[in-house]
């Protein structure tokens, strides 16, 4: 009897101890914090200074000119707020061509406070400015340069947070052949390396699918495309606009429609500027998702609108490029200062989980975005409609 009493008493005590442990293990106000910086970084001095260059257009008067600059700035100020850092933007305008971009790269390379660069914007600009920044061991992350050859190993400091044209070309090919059931495809390209590279990939895909495909070179600066339109077969039902100029694409579509020609039009990502290329019903691809489709993206779109008073839901890559550079800088901060060498070393292994792009930002050994993809949109009356 006594043993039974002791056993029961023991069980009761064990129950009370379990309740006591429960009391102690959880507090009343649990606050969850998330951070995209690794645990090792939390041990680093919280305040960290440095400059991050941005090579993007901002000297023009069009609102669309400064979107990448705007997004990079929002990203940096947001990062500073979240991490207690004091990184500053070092802006360099690129609205006047590759000569200006080269000068910008030289200026940034010479400024020892600059620890990394967002940009340049286009593949041509990367080719022009890359060797200058490589020589200075200044890492640069492009939010929009998609030419495949940029990551052939010749540009050591180049990274990108978007998929390249080897992903875009099949996406356009699939749309033309599989979705739109094109019977005869015409590809129009201009002399820009981006345009010809993309056109090569699309032509390859369509030809492999057994669909007749022809190609024509146009001039992006021409205003009258009558001679080009005459050479487009009358029975061509899909026209791919592999062009570097959205204005040229708009002109071609208008002129073709005016002559009673109404094939399905597919534009490459350079035409993803709704203010300049907006024929209703046309398709266009982009390396950037609509940020409104992801929770994290939705928040920053609202933030952007609060700062700039307009909606710009397709600026995610510039935000992510800045974020990954700032993260690499913070990871390697010493004595309150970020360093160029630190960013150069840290960038290959820097990772952003659940970025505003709706995926993790992580680089392959070739400095490409892991699992990057292109998105297909259809142009509606006043916005893009996500297709695939």
């Amino acid at each position, binding site marked *: 009897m006594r043993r039974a009493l002791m056993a029961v008493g023991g069980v*009761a005590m064990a129950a009370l101890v379990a309740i006591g442990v429960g009391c102690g293990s959880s507090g009343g106000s649990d606050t969850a914090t998330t951070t995209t910086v690794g645990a090792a970084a939390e041990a680093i001095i919280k305040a960290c200074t440095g400059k991050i260059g941005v090579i993007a257009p*901002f000297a023009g008067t069009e609102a669309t000119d400064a979107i990448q600059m705007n997004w990079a*700035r929002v990203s940096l100020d947001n990062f500073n707020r979240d991490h207690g850092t004091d990184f500053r933007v070092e*802006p360099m305008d690129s609205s006047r061509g590759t000569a200006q971009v080269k000068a910008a790269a030289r200026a940034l390379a010479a400024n020892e406070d600059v620890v990394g660069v967002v940009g340049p914007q286009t593949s041509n600009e990367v080719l022009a400015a890359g060797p200058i920044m490589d020589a200075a061991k200044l890492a640069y992350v492009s939010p929009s340069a998609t030419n495949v050859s940029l990551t052939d190993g010749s540009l050591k400091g180049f990274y990108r947070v978007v998929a390249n044209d080897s992903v875009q070309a099949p996406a356009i090919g699939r749309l033309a052949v599989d979705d739109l059931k094109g019977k005869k495809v015409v590809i129009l390209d201009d002399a820009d390396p981006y345009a010809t590279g993309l056109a090569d990939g699309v032509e390859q895909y369509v030809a492999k699918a057994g669909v007749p495909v022809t190609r024509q070179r146009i001039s992006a600066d021409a205003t009258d495309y009558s001679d080009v339109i005459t050479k487009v077969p009358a029975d061509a039902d899909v026209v791919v606009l592999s062009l570097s100029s959205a204005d040229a694409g708009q002109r071609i579509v208008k002129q073709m429609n005016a002559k009673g020609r109404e094939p399905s039009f597919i534009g490459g990502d350079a035409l993803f500027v709704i203010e300049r290329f907006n024929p209703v019903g046309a398709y266009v691809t982009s390396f950037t998702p609509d940020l409104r489709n992801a929770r994290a993206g939705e928040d920053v779109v609202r*933030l952007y609108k609060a700062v700039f008073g307009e909606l710009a839901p397709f600026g995610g890559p510039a935000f992510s490029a800045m974020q990954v550079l700032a993260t690499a800088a913070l990871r390697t901060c010493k004595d309150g200062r970020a360093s160029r060498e630190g960013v150069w070393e840290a960038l290959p292994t820097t990772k952003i989980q659940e970025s505003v792009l709706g995926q993790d930002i992580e680089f392959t050994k070739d400095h490409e975005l892991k699992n990057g993809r292109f998105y297909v949109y259809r142009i509606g009356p006043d916005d893009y409609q996500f297709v695939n």
Partner: protein
Amino acid sequence: MHSWWNVSLAVILGVAAIVAGITAWRGTVLNGHAVENFTLSTQSTNNANTLAQDAERTINTQRTLYLDYQQAVDAGDAKLAAMAYSMMDTGTRSAIEWWDEQPTGNRPPTPFSSANPGWPAPSLVIDARSTLDEAEAQLELANDELAKSHSLELLAALLTITFLAGGLSGVFQSESAKRALVAASGGTLVVCLIALVFMW
């Protein structure tokens, strides 16, 4: 055997009383936290709204003063230009100074551009929105604690079944009925204990 059941019943009822007390205490604590967090979130929301209004007012004032200043400079009115400049805050002056120093080819259309490191508007807006996000998080926490508190109150009510079943076991003469009621009492207590741990 008979005394074994009595002892078990006594232990069950004893533990049930303790658990009931702890459940009630925890429910009250969470209720209190919820009220505290509701109050804090209201305060944070007010702070966030104030910050947002201040940011908007600062941005508009910066632009207006700059326009007045630039018009005065263009018109050659040094006195008016100086007056407008003197009314500017350090952020506006810093933005204008940076803009003035830029070569024409590398200068945005106005000093109030994201390219201007001295333009403070983005960080003002971000601060306001961060405060609002904190307020929303506090509100969510308060709602969560209130829901837990209500669940614990329900649990305390369910514990009365333990007492009822245990008490009834003393009324019936049949051994099987007694066992069944003691088992029901014990079973309810175990379920409530597990629920208490999860809901803590």
